[in-house]
């Protein structure tokens, strides 16, 4: 009996030892690297190496799991795990980091970042004024906004339903058909965003002909307990924002919890008046629960987000003819000017996700289920909403991944059910439902310095509307095929990528059936049920080169979109509002080039110069006018100094100067105007009181420049409502 017990005990120890995964991370001189981020992407768990460069986890990691190694200042690496062998990783020291992905190898949700043109941006609420402004620092990316309350992302001149947003694998549909509806969530609990520009994101749907943004939560922690509290304030709108986050794990159970509250008054213009009703409030709470059992992983996520943004620039006459004094206040009343007034939106978003995966040998099976509910009430009156819409979106997505040494195959499908339901008789868009089925296949081949990827997707969509109030009886189906093919080649320090892709977008129910006043945009909008599918083809070429001190990225592209749907003004007026019709143009061409430059002086390793250029030309073949809401060309400059060697003396972490120059925009739609060029400069100082307590101080629009971006939501109001004047912001974060 004793021998049996001893043997059993030894077997248990062997089992426990066998269940551990351990490794070591070194530099090229075999010196250990500490605080390396080690991300097990298939398990969504993040570890850190210790002072000896070692890491260890109790998790039993299946073969072919992706593990990414990242440390600031070093080339990151992604490898496929093989049990039994020694996990020893060497990271090369980098002098130049290009647009946060100067490294070639990194894990991406959107695909293989070697073979597909994927850009990434870290999201850090400590340094940020807003999440959308953070993302807009990427070249080719801009934003439509009217203050911090309503902001939307523009990618290569395209926005709205052409730029699709995903949050942890679920499409977020905050009524993207209109420019007065923001993105629908904040950066609470998020770690980074991935971006594919143009029509190349096959796995996540065909409709993202402008681009696809994938926002990701921070992974689960390997530590027993971690958390943070943070707070932010700015003196432009007296924005006050507080957040907390807690992460812990016990054995194979992982839990993350986050919460946020933000309130803001009207923002201050350069002339010291305040844009009336640009105020907002936001609340959010979210959690993620993960459980692993051997090779089987389950994650359940829930999120509730509410926001109450005012709609500034609201008038009862032609907005272009009012004066700025009619929509601005000479001073703020802090006891009343945080309260919602009219018109105002009340937005309630709920998101529930269940994802599971099972890995065995070379296979990974994933199943994803998500349900998103958006309720939007838009109040122009105090006692009744102008419309009250529920939009629900259910996604089911199974997929199978096979990995061999050089080949990766992914086969999957998406089933999407959407329902649009009005809760009152007044409505702008009708009750409608749609069903979408989209199977896809993607193949990747990599050998040495060469890679090729190809993907094909077929989508079938059926749209039904039997709205009795609007007397509609519509039942139609749309189907088409999307594709993407790319080549990758690396020759010493030169990297080349070329991608040819095609996608389509079926018309939205608002484009087909809108018929009413939209107070948020001060328009009477009319749809057209004859609208057909938009088709887009894109060629994207990317060249990267870097040495120890200089890095260059050049990314020209061309996209043509046939049957482009647009909302254009007419000479008619209904109910006192100018009438806008949805119509379709035969062909629109968008050409451009994005470039990034990063210089790092040898004598000053802590100093970085970064510059990015975005040039875009959009042409409408059917009109003498250009396209609406196309951002002006821009040059963005950033000088960043890190106090690495001095931080113990000065407590300073970094100092940065950010400058953006916008060229004049003289290509515009019929109802737009020329926008002059402008410069804006922002300063930021990071302070590190301790390893746990950080602060950032920002001074924005240092020279109090009066400017209105061409794609501002209030560009057409009062000759163009300016963006905020000079203001400071402070963010504090304590981590434990």
């Amino acid at each position, binding site marked *: 009996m004793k021998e049996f017990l001893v043997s059993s005990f030894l077997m248990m120890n062997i089992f426990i030892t066998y269940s551990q995964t351990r490794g070591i991370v070194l530099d090229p001189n075999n010196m250990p690297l500490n605080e390396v981020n080690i991300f097990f992407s298939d398990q969504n768990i993040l570890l850190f190496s210790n002072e000896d460069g070692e890491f260890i986890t109790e998790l039993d990691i299946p073969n072919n799991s992706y593990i990414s190694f990242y440390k600031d200042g070093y080339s990151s690496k992604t490898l496929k795990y093989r049990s039994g062998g020694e996990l020893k990783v060497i990271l090369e020291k980098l002098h130049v980091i290009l647009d946060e992905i100067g490294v070639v190898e990194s894990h991406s949700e959107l695909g293989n970042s070697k073979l597909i043109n994927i850009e990434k941006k870290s999201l850090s609420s400590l340094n940020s004024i807003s999440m959308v402004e953070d993302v807009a620092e990427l070249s080719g990316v801009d934003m439509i906004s009217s203050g911090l309350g309503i902001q939307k992302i523009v990618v290569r001149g395209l926005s709205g339903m052409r730029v699709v947003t995903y949050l942890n694998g679920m499409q977020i549909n905050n009524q993207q058909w209109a420019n007065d509806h923001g993105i629908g969530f904040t950066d609470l609990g998020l770690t980074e965003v991935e971006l594919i520009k143009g029509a190349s994101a096959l796995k996540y749907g065909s409709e993202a002909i402008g681009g696809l943004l994938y926002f990701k939560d921070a992974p689960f922690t390997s530590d027993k307990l971690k958390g943070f509290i943070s707070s932010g304030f700015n003196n432009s709108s007296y924005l006050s924002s507080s957040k907390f986050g807690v992460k812990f794990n016990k054995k194979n159970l992982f839990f993350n919890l986050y*919460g946020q*509250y933000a309130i803001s008054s009207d923002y201050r213009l350069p002339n010291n*008046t305040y844009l009336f009703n640009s105020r907002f409030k936001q609340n959010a709470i979210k959690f993620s629960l993960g459980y692993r059992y051997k090779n089987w992983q389950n994650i359940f996520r829930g999120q509730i987000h509410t926001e109450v943004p005012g709609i500034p620039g609201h008038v*009862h*006459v032609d907005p272009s003819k009012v004066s700025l004094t*009619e929509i601005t206040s000479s001073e703020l009343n802090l006891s009343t000017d945080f309260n919602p007034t009219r018109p105002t939106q009340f937005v309630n978003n709920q998101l529930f996700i269940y994802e599971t995966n099972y890995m065995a040998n070379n296979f990974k099976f994933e199943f994803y289920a998500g349900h998103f509910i958006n309720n939007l009430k838009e109040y122009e009156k*105090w006692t009744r909403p102008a419309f009250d819409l529920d939009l629900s979106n259910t996604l089911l997505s199974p997929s199978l991944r096979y990995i061999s040494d050089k080949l990766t195959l992914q086969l999957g499908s998406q089933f999407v059910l959407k329902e649009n339901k009005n809760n009152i008789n007044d409505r702008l868009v009708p009750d409608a439902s749609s069903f979408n089925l989209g199977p896809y296949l993607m193949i990747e081949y990599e050998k040495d310095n060469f890679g090729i990827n190809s993907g094909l997707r077929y989508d079938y969509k059926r749209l039904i509307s039997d709205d009795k109030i609007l007397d509609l009886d519509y039942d139609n189906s749309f189907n088409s095929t999307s594709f993407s093919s790319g080549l990758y080649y690396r020759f010493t320090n030169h990297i080349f990528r070329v991608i040819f892709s095609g996608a389509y977008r079926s018309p939205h129910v608002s484009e087909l059936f809108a018929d009413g006043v939209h107070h948020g945009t001060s328009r009477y909008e009319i749809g057209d049920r004859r609208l057909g599918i938009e088709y887009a083809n894109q060629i994207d070429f990317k060249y990267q080169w870097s040495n120890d001190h200089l890095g260059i990225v050049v990314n020209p592209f061309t996209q043509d979109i046939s049957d482009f749907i647009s909302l254009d003004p007419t000479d008619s007026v209904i109910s006192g509002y100018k009438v806008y019709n949805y119509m379709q143009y035969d062909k629109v061409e968008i050409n451009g080039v994005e470039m990034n430059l990063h210089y790092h002086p040898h004598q000053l390793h802590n100093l970085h110069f970064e510059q990015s250029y975005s040039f875009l030309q959009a042409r409408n073949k059917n009109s003498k006018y250009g396209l609406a809401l196309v951002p002006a060309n821009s040059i963005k400059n950033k000088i960043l100094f890190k106090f690495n060697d001095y931080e113990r003396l000065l407590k300073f972490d970094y100092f940065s100067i950010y400058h953006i120059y916008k060229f004049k925009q003289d290509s515009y739609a019929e109802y737009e105007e020329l926008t002059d060029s402008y410069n804006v400069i922002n300063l930021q100082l990071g302070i590190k009181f301790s390893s746990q307590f950080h602060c950032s101080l920002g001074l924005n629009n240092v020279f109090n420049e009066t400017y209105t971006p061409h794609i501002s939501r209030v560009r057409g109001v009062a000759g163009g409502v300016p963006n905020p004047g000079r203001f400071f912001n402070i963010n504090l974060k304590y981590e434990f």
Partner: protein
Amino acid sequence: MKKRNLVTVGALSVMLVFTSCSKSDSVECHECHVAYDNNGVEIEVEILAADGGDDFCGTELETVEAPGYTHEIPQTIVGMDTVPAGFYEVHCEEHADH
């Protein structure tokens, strides 16, 4: 002890967020006006509630904001502008204090 304090902080934070979620939008009473488009310039004519006061409240506010409701005003001089007599839609939202 440390864990219990952290859990307490987390729970209190959650409660704070949820209690903040309640809609603090107050309908109460509001002043109302009609708006006249004088060649692109909005002219406001203040209207009075049934009791002769400025504020419209409760059922009276709902009535003037109901779909299709219009309010009749006589010819009115506002500053240098003349607003013709007629029926106009009522607006009770606040405007910028300039």
